[in-house]
């Protein structure tokens, strides 16, 4: 790791075209004050141009022309050294080649590989290029920080106006549902591409704003990459328990604390110590309440192939259930047209299971009529570990349904 740190500074230098052909990097072991003083003096001998990477002892870069002089100096003073790097330029060339290879396909939004799963850093980097490529349409907001202090970023798609009605989408609130973050990235790109091209997208963005939080649970997402691919919850520490994390889709203040969630911190559906205890959840709550004009929330999960609307915490039908049902019916039908993928739809409690403290139950109870949850592919064959070959087909078919919902929201202002 130390070597890597050293290399980055050298690569920067290499990019400004300083070459290190034949230069060697030596590791010096100074064994007394006298020797350290000698090395300091060596540093001051500017004609030798030695470059101490960590004053005043090793590692030490010695330019090729000065090699013999420096070696003689060290040997005659009994300072032991070893050659860490025999030819610095050779090493730098190899490193540059390797880095270029891995960056080659990701240097702009048009070459970000949507058909593979990415790390958080890769997605965040790509988000910045999306904003840079569409400066008049896309901006990046930070709505808060996760438990482990990672930024919670939201992409805002807007053609202007002042506090226009908004549509909110989130993906990745359950970190192991990798198809959702991947779909979120693809969808963000799609929205940016289609403004000015597709009549529906253009109409929507000409009077409304779209907000898209691609990584709603960054701590969990990082954990699925580093440690446990099957991690679902946040990574908050639970007082008095060795178990970590709260289910961010049981932590909302809607029917909080019922039998559709668990009071056990070790459970995958642990509701948390109180509603909105999770920073990841609170950030969205604050954003939506602060915005005051969000007309639709679409929260995306996997798997089961379902399109759901409130409620999850009670069996009583939502006041708007008839309209929501019609919207879901059309969306699911248009989704099926793309690749034949069959979705079921209905209220959460009727279609999947009793679940309290869910995102869309809270948003619905707080004035967001068009609140929907997707459960993307598949139905259990691969489950959470959906092959990356299915990312683009899944995102494409989901887009048909999401667009239906957004068009309905546009055409039914309230």
């Amino acid at each position, binding site marked *: 790791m130390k070597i890597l740190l050293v290399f980055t500074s050298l690569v920067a230098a290499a990019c400004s075209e300083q070459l290190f052909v034949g230069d060697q990097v030596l590791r010096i072991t100074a064994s007394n004050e006298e020797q350290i003083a000698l090395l300091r003096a060596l540093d001051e001998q500017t004609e030798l141009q030695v470059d101490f990477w960590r004053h005043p002892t090793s590692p030490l870069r010695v330019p090729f022309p000065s090699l013999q002089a420096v070696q003689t100096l060290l040997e005659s003073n009994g300072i032991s050294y070893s050659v860490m790097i025999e030819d610095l330029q050779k090493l730098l060339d190899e490193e540059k080649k390797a880095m270029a290879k891995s960056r080659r396909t990701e240097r702009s939004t048009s070459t970000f590989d949507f058909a*593979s*799963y990415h790390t958080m850093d890769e997605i965040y980097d790509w988000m910045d290029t999306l904003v840079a490529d569409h400066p008049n349409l896309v901006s990046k907001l930070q709505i808060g920080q996760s438990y482990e202090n990672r930024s919670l970023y939201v992409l805002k798609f807007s053609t202007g106006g002042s506090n226009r009605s908004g549509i909110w989408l989130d993906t990745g609130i359950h970190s192991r549902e990798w198809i959702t973050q991947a779909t979120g990235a693809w969808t963000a790109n799609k929205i940016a591409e289609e403004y000015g091209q597709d009549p529906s997208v253009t109409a929507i963005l000409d009077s409304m704003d779209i907000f898209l939080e691609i990584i709603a649970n960054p701590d969990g997402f990082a954990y*699925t990459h580093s440690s446990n*691919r*099957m991690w*679902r919850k946040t990574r908050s520490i639970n007082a008095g328990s060795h178990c970590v994390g709260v*289910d961010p889709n049981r932590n909302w203040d809607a029917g909080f604390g019922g039998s559709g969630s*668990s009071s056990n911190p070790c*459970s*995958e*559906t642990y509701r948390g110590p109180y509603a909105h205890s999770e920073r990841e959840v609170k950030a969205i709550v604050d954003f939506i309440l602060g915005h005051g004009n969000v007309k639709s929330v679409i929260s995306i999960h996997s798997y*089961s192939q379902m399109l759901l609307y409130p409620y999850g915490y009670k069996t009583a039908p939502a006041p708007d259930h008839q309209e929501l049902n019609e919207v879901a019916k059309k969306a699911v039908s248009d989704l099926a047209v793309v690749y034949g993928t069959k979705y079921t739809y209905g209220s959460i409690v009727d279609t999947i*299971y009793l679940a309290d403290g869910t995102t869309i139950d809270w948003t619905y109870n707080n004035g967001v009529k068009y609140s929907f949850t997707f459960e993307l592919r598949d139905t*259990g*064959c*691969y*489950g*959470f*570990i*959906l*092959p*990356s*070959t*299915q990312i683009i087909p899944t995102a494409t078919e989901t887009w048909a349904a999401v667009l239906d919902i957004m068009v309905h929201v546009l055409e039914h202002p309230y």
Partner: protein
Amino acid sequence: DIDGVGHKYHLELVLEDVLDKDSTVNCTAEILYHLGNKNIAPDVQFTIEGELKNTDEADNIFYNRIKSLEKELVAENIPDNHGNISPEMEPVRLLAWVASGYVIWQNSTENTKFQLAQIKHVKQVKRSDEYLEFDFMILLHEMVSQEIIPWQMTVLWHPQHGVQVTR
């Protein structure tokens, strides 16, 4: 609802070949979930209308390939975290899937919905007879509780004698 016994469900379903989506077969089934004691697997009676596809050729190819391996098969993470499976491992995954079906049946109640989430580890066990034996460590996903449950199972298989889960 059968008083004092449990809950019986009549099902009409369509079986679809995982490897050939156009190949389907109708099926009717009766499931009886026993009252009270959750340690008894539900009773299952079923009738298949028609015939299941013959898989002898693929079975024998897989069987012979494993039999001819120099060292016992060992593998991890099938599929890998990105959902990839090498073609050689595909039959191993299918075998695990079938075997996990048995495990799931034995542990199902009206309030559970299990799926095989991933094979964490598989190790072939040497045998002197004609059967193939594999030790699996699998992860089951239970939908209602959302829990991931690790499970160890030992699976015997032979092309003509089918699958047996011995542990």
